[in-house]
């Protein structure tokens, strides 16, 4: 009753430390891109994961191995394994229609933006995605995005293609092309940079943030963005880029 049960139908190794899980749920869920689920592994832990796709009772998650629970998932969860989740939680991205949209994603930040790309396409948007990775070994989902939209790939320690960060690539792209809205998910520093550069040019930005999620429903205060009083789990995880800039300012003030 409390958790929705799912059975893993397919596991794919996408890149170094990154796996994709296709899950069939016991009932339908209707997440909006940017919303997340709390994934429970009995007696192991419970962690937030973005929906990377959802279609009726089939959902997709992308899991980067970072610690205890994600390590357990990589090692122990295979086809036929049961998983449990609660959600969808939080507020997702604004789904505009018929606009020129740019997605800027890094690492497992690709997850919600892939889901978003699909939906934006369905709403007649022109979508371009910039995917940033540390190295070739960590790169994934180029083809998946390629099937949906234009793709630019930035690899910092790459052997081919654009060498640099997603932000570097963004700067180049913004010189030549114009967009009506930018969506970003990845490391917070990257998202702050993306927000700054786009807002400077007057382009609205939405970014998906992370904080330590405990209750997931907005009552424990664990995920608060100080000093704004915003809760990632409930008021977000998607926030206006301007919020990120205020966060950053406060951080800078505080550090002084």
């Amino acid at each position, binding site marked *: *009753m*409390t*958790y929705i*049960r799912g059975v893993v139908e397919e596991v794919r190794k996408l890149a170094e430390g990154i796996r994709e899980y296709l899950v069939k749920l016991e009932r339908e869920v209707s997440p909006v891109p940017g919303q997340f689920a*709390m994934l*429970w592994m*009995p*007696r192991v*832990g*419970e*962690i937030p994961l973005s929906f990377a796709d959802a279609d009726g009772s089939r959902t997709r998650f992308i899991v980067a191995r970072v610690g205890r629970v994600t390590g357990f998932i990589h090692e122990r969860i295979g086809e036929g394994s*049961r998983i*449990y989740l*609660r959600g969808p939680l939080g507020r997702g991205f604004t789904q505009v229609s018929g606009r020129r949209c740019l997605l800027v994603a890094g690492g497992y930040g690709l997850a919600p933006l892939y889901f978003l790309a699909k939906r934006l396409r369905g709403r007649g948007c022109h979508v371009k995605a910039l995917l940033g990775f540390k190295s070739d070994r960590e790169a994934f989902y180029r083809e998946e995005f390629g099937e949906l939209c234009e793709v630019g790939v930035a690899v910092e320690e790459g052997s081919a293609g654009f060498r640099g960060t997603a932000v570097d690539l963004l700067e180049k792209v913004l010189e030549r092309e114009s967009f009506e809205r930018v969506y970003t998910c990845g490391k917070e520093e990257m998202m702050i940079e993306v927000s700054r550069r786009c807002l400077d040019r007057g382009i609205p930005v939405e970014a998906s943030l992370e904080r330590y*999620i*405990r*209750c*997931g*429903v*907005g*009552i*424990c*205060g*664990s995920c*608060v*963005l*100080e*000093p*704004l*009083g915003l*809760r990632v789990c*409930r008021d977000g995880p998607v926030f206006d880029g301007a919020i990120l800039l205020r966060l950053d300012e406060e951080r800078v003030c505080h550090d002084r």
Partner: protein
Amino acid sequence: MRASLEVDLAGLRLRNPTILASGILGSSLSLLKRVEEAGAGAAATKTITADPREGYPNPVFVDLGFGYLNAMGLPNPGVEEFSRLIAEARRLLKIPVIASVGGGGGEEFLLVAERVLEAGCDAIELNLSCPHVSGYGLEVGSDPELASRIAGSVKSISSKPVFAKISIHQSELGVVEKVIGSGVDGITAINTIRAMAIDVDSMKPILSNIYGGLSGRCIRPIALAVVYRIHGEFPDIPIIGVGGVEDWKSALEFILAGASAVGIGSEIARKDLKIFSETVQGLEEFLAERGFRSITELRGYAHKI
């Protein structure tokens, strides 16, 4: 003339009888501020212990559909850090800030109380009743003698009102009588009720801590009976009624039972922070419609039968 929602709570003046319950959003200054803006009449902090506590690992929260289960494990940054927060809150907020004081025994309670009083809190609430942190809360509070000794010692150093927060895992009236005897100014009733959930598919307990505390609308009938009984026995003691307040009607239930004010906690999960303004507005409209001048006229009204 607009009906007044102002209440006097053991000397605290509240603009309205809604109080943010302890443990809900109350370890963040900016969230406390937001709760004030949302309309709360006062706010309690998360329970404060002498040393920082990490709390338990996830899962710590379960939405049961009719209520909630939580076992956060009293995560808090400890009294050192928390005193700074209270001092800032005192500058930033207009509504009274109630410091929830925890401890593993009399000394810790006293130490924490001393510090939060220095920091300028407007009142103290003694958490004698958290049901799922071993060595804390209920394990202290279910010994009426120990509970009243703690209450008495904190009261002796406090110029601010002191509330004792109780649970039902004890002879409530027994503990209430004892702590009132030791001089506390009011009672907060009730804390969460010890409970658990097992997922039958995995055949495992859900909460990492196994046991947690039940809260939300499903415990309201239980909390109401406690408040009604206490008010019946000790009509002069101010009571903060807590447990499943979800709207103006449920807030009013507590007031009719004898509460001077109500705590609002986990139903924020469903209603979000607008629960405060909606509750306040609903109470105002009720008073106006029925021709009451002040919410205080309704305190304990259900006893007049």
